[in-house]
C-alpha cells in the first residue's frame, strides 16, 4: 500500500513550519521517526486541522446569541437540537448531560470524513489510528459514566447478570461483548472511509476527468451515515451503562 500514498501539499507545508521543533522534542523523549524530514504524519496534521477548524468556526459562530435567533444561530440550534434529540430519545431526560462528548465526537467524525473530499487533504479517519482513538474514547467514557451514575461495585455487578448462579457463564460473555464494541466501532468507521477513499483513488488513477464524481457523491452519503451511526451507537452504549437504575426503582 506504499505505492498509493503520496505526500500532500498541506502536510509538507505543516512539516516545513513545525517539523524541526517536533523533531527536537521527539529526540528529547527518545523517539526516532522513520522520515526525519517529515516527523508529523499526515493524519496528525489533518486531525489538527479539523480541530482548529471546528474550534474557530463554532467559536466564532456562537457569538452574540439573541432570544429571537438570527439565521446563523438557527443553523447552530438545529445542529444542537439534532444531537439532543438523539440523546433524549435513547437515554431519556438525563441524556442532555452527555451532549458535550457526543456532540464533539459526532462533529469531529463528520468533518474528518468530509475533509477527504477536498483536494489537497485526506480524511484522518481513513487510518485505523484515528478511528481506534475515537472508539477507545467512547469506550472509556461510557464505562466511566456508568460507574459515576451507579457506583463502581454496583456497575461491575451488572456484568454478572440477573441470576448469581449463572455468573461464571455470563461474565466472560459480557466481557467479550463489551470489548467487541470498540473493535466494531473503529473497524466500521475505518473500513467504510478507507474503502471509499481507495475506490476514488483507483478510479482517479485510471480516468481522472469526470468519472470520480459519482463516487465522491456516494462518499458524501457514506460520510454522513457513518458519523450518524457512530453517534447513535455511542449513545446506545451510554444508555446501556447508565440506565439500569430506572429498572430497579
Amino acid at each position, binding site marked *: *500500500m506504499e505505492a498509493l500514498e503520496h505526500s500532500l501539499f498541506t502536510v509538507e507545508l505543516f512539516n516545513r513550519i513545525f517539523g524541526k521543533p517536533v523533531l527536537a522534542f521527539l529526540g528529547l523523549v527518545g523517539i526516532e521517526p522513520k522520515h526525519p524530514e517529515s516527523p508529523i504524519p499526515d493524519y496528525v496534521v489533518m486531525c489538527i486541522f479539523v480541530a482548529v477548524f471546528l474550534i474557530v468556526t463554532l467559536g466564532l459562530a456562537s457569538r452574540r446569541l439573541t432570544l429571537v435567533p438570527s439565521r446563523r444561530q438557527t443553523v447552530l440550534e438545529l445542529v444542537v437540537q439534532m444531537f439532543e434529540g438523539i440523546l433524549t430519545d435513547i437515554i431519556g431526560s438525563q441524556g442532555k448531560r452527555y451532549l458535550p462528548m457526543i456532540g464533539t465526537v459526532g462533529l469531529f467524525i463528520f468533518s474528518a470524513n468530509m475533509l477527504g473530499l477536498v483536494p489537497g487533504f485526506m480524511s484522518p479517519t481513513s487510518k485505523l489510528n484515528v478511528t481506534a482513538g475515537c472508539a477507545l474514547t467512547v469506550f472509556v467514557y461510557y464505562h466511566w459514566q456508568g460507574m459515576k451514575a451507579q457506583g463502581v461495585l454496583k456497575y461491575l455487578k451488572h456484568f454478572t447478570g440477573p441470576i448469581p448462579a449463572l455468573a461464571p457463564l455470563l461474565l466472560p460473555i459480557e466481557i467479550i461483548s463489551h470489548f467487541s464494541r470498540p473493535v466494531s466501532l473503529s*473497524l466500521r468507521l475505518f*473500513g467504510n472511509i478507507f474503502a471509499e477513499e481507495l475506490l476514488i483513488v483507483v478510479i482517479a488513477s485510471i480516468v481522472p476527468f469526470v468519472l470520480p464524481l459519482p463516487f465522491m457523491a456516494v462518499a458524501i452519503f457514506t460520510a454522513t451515515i457513518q458519523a*450518524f*451511526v457512530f453517534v*447513535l451507537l455511542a449513545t446506545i452504549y451510554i444508555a446501556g451503562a447508565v440506565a439500569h437504575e430506572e429498572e430497579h426503582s
Partner: protein
Amino acid sequence: MKKLKGLGILLFFVLVASSPLLAQEEAAVNPIRANLYKLSIIVGGAIITLAVAAGAFCQAKSISSACEGISRNPGAGPHIRFLLIFGLVLIETLVIYALLITIIIILIQWGNWA
C-alpha cells in the same frame, strides 16, 4: 445536422477523457512462489464475493420488510426508517470486515515476494 454536431462533440470529449487508458504498462515480474500468489488472489476474490452475496440478500430482506411495515402503518414511518438505517449499517459492518481482509490479501500480494 445539429444533433450530429452535438453527438460529435460528446464523442470527442469521451475519447479525450479516456485517454489515460492508453497508458497501460506490462505485467509484473514472475514471482518465486507463483502458486501461492495465484491462490491468494482467487481466495481474496472469493471472500469478498461470498460476503457481498450474503450481505446483499440480508439487506434486501430487511428493506422489503421495512417497506411492507411502512405501507401497513404510514404513521410509524419515521420509527421504521430509523430502524431500517440502523439495521442496514449493522449488516454492512460485517461486509466491511470481509472487505478489509480482502484488501489486506490483495494489496500485500502474498507469495509475490519470497
